[in-house]
C-alpha cells in the first residue's frame, strides 16, 4: 500500500465514506462533461427525478462531434446538431456553465479546462472520457468515468471508486533535441505494455519530467491511460504555479499565496512509499513511432518493424495481426514508410507548443505531393494564440489545412476521417483498428514535430534530420 504520495493525500481529502462493496465514495472537485457521454447520464437523472447536486462544479464544452471546417449552426450533420442541442438544453436547465461554439473558450475538454485554470493541484477531476488523466499533469487525481458514473456525479458530486496502487516512473536525464514528451510516453507504454498500468496510478517524476513544460506534462499524463493506468500525475512545482498564475479561474490575491502553500504540501513526500517503482534514462529515448494497432506497438525511428516471431510469446499474435492489418513488412525500417494523411491536433498534442514545435519543422518547406495534411488546434484559445504568432500562416504557406478547434481526426466522430486503406501520421493517442473513421484505415502515432516531418517528406522521417538544417 502506498503512503505519503500525492495520490494518497488527495484521495484522503476527497474521501466521503467507505462503501460496503470495498470501494470508496469519493468527492469530485471538478466534473467536466461533453456532448458524447453526458446525454444518457442526464436522461438517467431525469428518469429518477434527481437534480444536479453541485451545478457550479460541473463544466461543459463541445468537442467530439464539431465539424472543423465550418462551425456554423445548425451543423450539416443532424445527429451532431442534436447532440450539441441536447447538451445546451441540459446545461441551461441545470445551471451548468457551457463553453460552446463561438464562446472563445470552447475546445477539446482536456485542452480548454487547463487553459482556463479550472484544473488545479489537489483536485479530483472526473469526466466521461478516458483521457481525463491529462489533468493529472497539475497534481490532480483525474480519471475517466463511464456514463453511469457521470450520472452519479451529476446527482451526488461523488462516485464509488477503488483506490489504485501507485507506481512511480522515475525518468533521469533530459530529453534530447528532436525528442518530445510524446516520444517519452510512447516509449514508456512500449516497455510497460498497454495493460502494465491496470490497477495503478502512475506518478511521473524525476529530472527529465521536472524539466518539461506544463503542456508536455499534459501529453505524458494524457496517455497514461494508453498504458492501462487510469490516472497519471505529476507533482506540482514552480512550473505548475507559473502556468496557473493569472488564469481565468485560478485563485487570485491572498488566496493565490495560500493556494500555493497548500499545493506544495500535496507533492509526494521524499519518504513516500510506492507500490512499485521503475526508473529509466530519458536521454536515451529516440523519436518513437507506432507501427501496429495498439499504442504499445512503438519502436524508435531507427528500429525495424519487429518480426512477430522474435517477440515474447504473448505479443506474437497481436503483432501478426498488426503486420497484416497495417500491411507493413516485418524486418523493414519504420523510417521511410509512405503515408497519405498527416494530422496535428487532439488532446494529446493540440496545444500551442505542439503546433509551434511542428511549425519550426515545416517552415520553409512544402507538404509533399499527394499528402493531405492538416492542423486542428485543440481549442479556440490555442487557435487565437497560434494566429497571433503567425503559426497558422507557416502551416498554410506550406500547404497544410488550418482548421477550427475540435477532436477532429483523433476519432472521427465528425466529418474528418481517413478513407479506405489510407495511412496517417497522427499526433493523437490511439491507433486502434478503424479509430480514425475508416474501418480499415491505418494510424502511425508520433510527436507533432514528427508528423510535420512526415508531411514534408511524404514518409516517416527522423525529425532530427530536419532540425539540423
Amino acid at each position, binding site marked *: 500500500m502506498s503512503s505519503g504520495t500525492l495520490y494518497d493525500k488527495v484521495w484522503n*481529502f476527497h474521501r*466521503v465514506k467507505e462503501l460496503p*462493496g470495498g470501494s470508496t*465514495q469519493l468527492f469530485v472537485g471538478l466534473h467536466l462533461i461533453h456532448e458524447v457521454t453526458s446525454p*444518457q447520464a442526464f436522461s438517467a437523472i431525469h428518469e429518477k427525478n434527481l437534480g444536479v447536486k453541485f451545478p457550479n462544479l460541473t463544466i461543459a464544452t463541445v468537442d467530439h462531434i464539431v465539424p472543423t471546417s465550418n462551425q456554423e449552426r445548425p451543423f450539416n450533420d443532424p445527429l451532431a446538431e*442534436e447532440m450539441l442541442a441536447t447538451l445546451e438544453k441540459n446545461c441551461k436547465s441545470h445551471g451548468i456553465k457551457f463553453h460552446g461554439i463561438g464562446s472563445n473558450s470552447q475546445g477539446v475538454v482536456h485542452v480548454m479546462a487547463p487553459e482556463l485554470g479550472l484544473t488545479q493541484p489537489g483536485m479530483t477531476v472526473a469526466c466521461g472520457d478516458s483521457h481525463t488523466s491529462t489533468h493529472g499533469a497539475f497534481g490532480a487525481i483525474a480519471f475517466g468515468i463511464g456514463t453511469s458514473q457521470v450520472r452519479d456525479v451529476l*446527482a451526488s458530486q461523488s462516485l464509488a471508486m*477503488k483506490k489504485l496502487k501507485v507506481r512511480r516512473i522515475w525518468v533521469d536525464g533530459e530529453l534530447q533535441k528532436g525528442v518530445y514528451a510524446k516520444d517519452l510516453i510512447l516509449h514508456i507504454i512500449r516497455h510497460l505494455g498497454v495493460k502494465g498500468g491496470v490497477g495503478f496510478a502512475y506518478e511521473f517524476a524525476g529530472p527529465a519530467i521536472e524539466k518539461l513544460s506544463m503542456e508536455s506534462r499534459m501529453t505524458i499524463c494524457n496517455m497514461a491511460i494508453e498504458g492501462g493506468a487510469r490516472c497519471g500525475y505529476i507533482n506540482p512545482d514552480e512550473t505548475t504555479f507559473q502556468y496557473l498564475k493569472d488564469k481565468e479561474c485560478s485563485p487570485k490575491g491572498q488566496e493565490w499565496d495560500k493556494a500555493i502553500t497548500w499545493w506544495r504540501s500535496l507533492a509526494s513526500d521524499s519518504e513516500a512509499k510506492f507500490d512499485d517503482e521503475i526508473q529509466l534514462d530519458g536521454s536515451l529515448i529516440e523519436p518513437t513511432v507506432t507501427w501496429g494497432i495498439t499504442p504499445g506497438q512503438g519502436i524508435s525511428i531507427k528500429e525495424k518493424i519487429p518480426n512477430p516471431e522474435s517477440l515474447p510469446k504473448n505479443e506474437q499474435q497481436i503483432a501478426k495481426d498488426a503486420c497484416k492489418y497495417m500491411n507493413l513488412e516485418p524486418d523493414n525500417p519504420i523510417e521511410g514508410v509512405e503515408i497519405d494523411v498527416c494530422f496535428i491536433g487532439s488532446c494529446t498534442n493540440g496545444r500551442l507548443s505542439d503546433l509551434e514545435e511542428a511549425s519550426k519543422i515545416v517552415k520553409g518547406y512544402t507538404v509533399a505531393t499527394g499528402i493531405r495534411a492538416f492542423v486542428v488546434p485543440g481549442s479556440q484559445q490555442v487557435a487565437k494564440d497560434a494566429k497571433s504568432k503567425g503559426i497558422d500562416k507557416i502551416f498554410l504557406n506550406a500547404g497544410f489545412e488550418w482548421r477550427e478547434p475540435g477532436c477532429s481526426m483523433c476519432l*472521427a466522430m465528425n466529418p474528418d476521417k481517413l478513407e479506405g486503406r489510407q495511412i496517417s501520421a497522427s499526433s493523437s493517442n490511439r491507433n486502434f483498428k*478503424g479509430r480514425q473513421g475508416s474501418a480499415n484505415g491505418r494510424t502511425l502515432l508520433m510527436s507533432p514535430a514528427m508528423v510535420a516531418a512526415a508531411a514534408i517528406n511524404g514518409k516517416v522521417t527522423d525529425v532530427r534530420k530536419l532540425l539540423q538544417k
Partner: protein
Amino acid sequence: MKHEFPKGEIKSISGRSFVIKGDDIDTDRIIPARFLKCVSFSALGEQVFADDRKELKGNHPFDLDQNKGANILIVNDNFGCGSSREHAPQALMRWGIRLIVGESFAEIFFGNCLALGIPCLTAPKTEITKLQKLVDDNPKQIWDFKLKDSTISNQKETLKLNLEEGAYKMLFSGKWDATSQLLAEEERIKNTVKNLPYLNNFKQ
C-alpha cells in the same frame, strides 16, 4: 427482440454462450466511434462489433444463427481496453449479453459492466481455453452461472471463476446501482466539502 435488463440481485444466470477470441479487444471494436453519435443508447445493440461483423460478412459470432439468444460471452485477455465509452457494455447488454467470462478485463470496462449489472468474471488462460473449446464444440448447451460459488457449469463440467469481493457483494446484494447509495450520504458530503481548501478560499 426485447430483453429484460438486469435488475436487483444477480445471483445466477443461465443460457447459451459463445466465444469472441483475441486479446486486447478494445471498445472501439466493440462499438466503433461513429455509433457514439447518439443521445440515447437504444439502437446500440444492433451495432455491436459492427466493423468486425462487416468484415466477416455474416460469419461473425454475433451474426451466427446458433448464437441468437445466447447471453454469455467468453473472451480472452484485457477485454474492453481503450476508450472508457460505456456504449460498449451498453451495446453488449442491448444485444443480450448478461455475463462475460475471460482471462482479464480492462478496469473501466469492468466497472461500466458492473454498473449495468453485468458480471465480468475471470479464470486463468488454461481454463478459458478449455471453456472456449467446450463452448465451440457444442454451442447449443446451456451453461449455468452461480454467483455464490462463482462457477459456471454445463452439468458435466464445472469451472471455477474469480470475481473480486467488492463486485461480488454489489451483485449479490443488488446494490450495483451506485446512485442511491451515494445519495444517502448527504451529511458526509457536506463535511468533505467543508474540508476542501479549494472550495473554501484556501482557508487553513
